[in-house]
């Protein structure tokens, strides 16, 4: 699969944007600037970007509690997101959702989701709409290695097969659900096989490698988009931070985090590949980095300066037409 240069640049820019968004969010949380529960996506960027690079605004994604990366990859406005994390009324969700509920209908982002495996059934609904309207759209849901043990996830997979809808189930195995390893929480030895047992193909990817994810996701999305029913992507990946900010990470092996940052960094891997193929020079990538850093800096400045919500906004936006005919 050859990828045009502008797409390659965009993919790198997106991964870098996610990385820096998350690192900066981490810093701002440590500074006490961001309230609530925040789960960082650092380390998993290639998964979100490798998948979303196949999608357009009409396709939908639904994300998880660890949603920033998926939302950025699908095109959410970074400044609006940062304002949301800061709880401003100018945030993408007017400060009502926060980290776990970032969403943007216009970009086909049906939301991050605070309920583990809350998303897959909803994604099947979006896929069903695509099938009914026969409009060629696909609906992607992201799940973690822990989330796949939730009943709703199984129900969604089976229903997608029964209805033969263009739903794509992306499973990011970062080996942990909170503090528990996949080898404990998933009873069987082969999660990919368990998933395929539901009746759709699952394509495997190296989640530290954009190109690998891009290829696997391309197959899955093509399968779904062409009317062959659901498909899956199974990516092995690693998160560079704790489950939440402040997690002591007693579940890690010694050196595990250093090893991940050293050997499973999608940005490093991307740069290495570019160095090899010569498609984008290091200087050009550096320039992208600088732009991204500036964007993130600007987003934080904007978020800090943005207006705060006021008490009367509490009861707005619950209903569209409560009490009206």
């Amino acid at each position: 699969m050859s990828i045009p240069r502008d797409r390659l640049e965009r993919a790198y820019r997106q991964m870098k944007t996610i990385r820096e968004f998350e690192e900066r969010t981490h810093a701002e949380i440590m500074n006490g600037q961001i309230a609530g529960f925040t789960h960082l996506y650092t380390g998993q960027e290639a998964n979100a970007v490798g998948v979303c690079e196949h999608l357009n605004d009409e396709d939908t994604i639904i994300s998880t509690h660890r949603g920033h990366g998926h939302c950025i990859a699908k095109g959410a406005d970074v400044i609006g997101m940062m304002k949301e994390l800061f709880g401003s009324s100018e945030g993408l969700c007017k400060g009502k959702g926060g980290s776990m509920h970032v969403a943007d209908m216009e970009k086909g982002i049906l939301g991050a989701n605070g309920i583990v495996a809350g998303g897959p059934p909803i994604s099947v609904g979006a896929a069903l709409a695509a099938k009914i309207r026969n409009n060629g759209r696909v609906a992607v849901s992201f799940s973690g290695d822990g989330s796949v043990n939730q009943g709703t996830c199984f129900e969604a997979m089976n229903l997608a097969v029964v209805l033969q809808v263009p739903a794509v189930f992306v499973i990011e195995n970062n080996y942990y659900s909170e503090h528990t390893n996949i080898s404990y929480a998933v009873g069987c030895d082969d999660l990919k096989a368990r998933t395929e047992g539901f009746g759709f193909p699952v394509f495997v990817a190296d989640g530290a490698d954009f190109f690998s994810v891009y290829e696997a996701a391309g197959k899955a999305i093509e399968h779904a988009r062409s009317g062959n029913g659901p498909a899956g992507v199974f990516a092995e990946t690693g998160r560079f931070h704790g489950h939440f900010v402040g997690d002591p990470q007693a579940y890690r092996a010694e050196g595990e985090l250093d090893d991940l940052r050293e050997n499973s960094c999608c940005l490093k891997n991307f740069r290495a590949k570019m160095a090899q193929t010569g498609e984008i020079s290091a200087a050009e990538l550096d320039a992208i980095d600088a732009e991204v850093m500036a964007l993130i800096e600007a987003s934080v400045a904007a978020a800090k300066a943005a207006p705060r919500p006021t008490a009367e906004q509490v009861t707005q936006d619950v209903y569209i037409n409560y009490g009206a005919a």
Partner: protein
Amino acid sequence: MAEKTMRDAINEALHQAMAQDDSVFVIGEDVAGCNGSPSGDVGAVGGVFGVTGGLYKAFGPNRCIDTPISESAIVGAAAGAALVGMRPVAEIMFADFIGVCMDQIVNQMGKFRYMFGGKSKCPAVIRFASGGGFSAAGQHSQSMYQVMTSFPGLKVVIPSNAYDAKGLMLQAIADDDPVLFFEPKALYQEACEVPDEMYTIPFGEAGFVREGDDVTVVAFGQMVNRAAAAIDALEGEGISCDLIDPRTSSPLDEGAILESVEATGRLVVVDESPPRCGLTADIAGLAASKAFHSLKAPVQQVCAPHSPTPFSPELEAAYLPSVDKISAAIKATLA
């Protein structure tokens, strides 16, 4: 005007809404029926209560969609389709089954709009058969709407007759918010005059079933008929009552209730759910807070006791509020 049962009235509303708007579809277990069977008559069922009868044959497999027994996935499918512009009407058979799909209703569908800063709409309708009266015991007899009323973001509809059911269903489908539509299963066969044409009944506007001066009676769902029977019988004793059927417990027509209580000074609330944090308490509490100075007597709450629904017909008869209990409560407010 033709008499139609509540089942037929809702069915007609579905037919008409689907004919008018191709973003409307129905989904649920056996809403068509007989799928997958090598020689079955697909579409012959129309839901276990027959409410979706004929839709498969009229609108085909893309608009009348059978599912596995996976209620969370059914609600999720409705929620997701609604988020991208469809107007699904999902059937969850018995209201009791909210237990296996509550997250999708309460934490997903019901909260999208708020959590997303008002930038989404989720015009999904979820239908349930609710309430007692069939010796269906503890897991197939609950009303459940009182519990759903507690959750902001959801509209909760409880029709008490076929006419209202049709108009409320058409409103539910047209409504841009998620709507939970509770059909008291004891009323499916009850008939009244129902126009053939489409019409809507707005949410949050109570129905006035009886008008009177002495006591305000508020009743929900299948209790409306019983309350009316009690009131009619008391007329002979010179007692006249307002009977208010809120029709939607959320939004609630507080104004109608408060205005009536201001006039009568006496309030009886009737519902078939158990007492705690239920609708009788809710409305008694409303009166205690917002119509206190008009009240002349203790509010009477007529509801099920604090126990699950029993199986045995005699026990269930003693469990559900009866006409007699309602009469006694009305008299008690006047004592």
